[in-house]
């Protein structure tokens, strides 16, 4: 039985967290090309702002999911 405190991202019910992880990896992982053109555009800034806001809320999201799971168990669903 899977632990209620363990979430497999990208699996059932993990779509939103999966999106956050994808954005985190795309924006923060990988090779940075020295000398490549730096483009500072509003859209990218918004991605970063959105990501930061949500990443700092991951813990809250995990607690919410855990609470939902607990409610489901309690209500016998």
């Amino acid at each position, binding site marked *: 039985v899977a632990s209620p405190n363990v979430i497999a991202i990208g699996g059932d019910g993990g779509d939103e967290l999966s999106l956050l992880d994808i954005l985190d990896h795309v924006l923060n992982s990988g090779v940075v090309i020295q000398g*490549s053109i730096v483009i500072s555009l509003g859209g990218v800034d918004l991605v970063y702002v959105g990501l930061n806001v949500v990443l700092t809320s991951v813990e809250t999201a*995990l607690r919410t999911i855990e609470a939902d799971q607990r409610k489901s168990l309690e209500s016998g669903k």
Partner: protein
Amino acid sequence: VTSSNKLLVYCVAEGSPQLTDLRGLEDEPVRQVELQGLVLLYSDFSTGRPLNQADALRFHAVLRSVFDQQAIIPFRFPAFLESEAELKSHLQQNHAKYAADLARLREFVQMEVRISAVRENNAPSSGKAYLEGKLQQSRSLQEAVRAIRDPVADLTTDCKERQTDQGVRLFTLTKRPDVAAFRERISRFQPSTGFTIAVSGPWPATEFFHE
């Protein structure tokens, strides 16, 4: 600065990955430049419009379609170069490093386990209590990291940790065929009270590239 008439670079890979009908940003075809067994994938980006989250996801989709076939070295989104000549120059200058990494990591992917401490709702009664709580949490976190590494030790060739505000991100170098077993074992892990665990992957092994 505008991004008109630029080339968006995606990743470097070995050999000749299957790119049939692979489309990047702006629905532009993904193309490649080749040099001594390595290819660098890119597409045109000529509209100059602001980039957004959907672009980042499309970028990821391109990476994914190649990464599903083989190991890749992704570029961080967004990275643009001016011309094919610049692409070739970049590949040439970094060929030895990229070739070595891809050869070393050919059979591997990166799995990530995020261990987060659940924040206490009760405010500490004093500064000393706060510091003692932080110290205790730090010790518990390290114990949790050790505990979670054990069940996947035989599926882990290398491992790195990174501290975060919420806890620890654990990155493991795992053989591609072992991904399902890795996820299954982590999903059965029973973390001690006060922690949540999230596992994700497989990802390109970016934490294990040449430094």
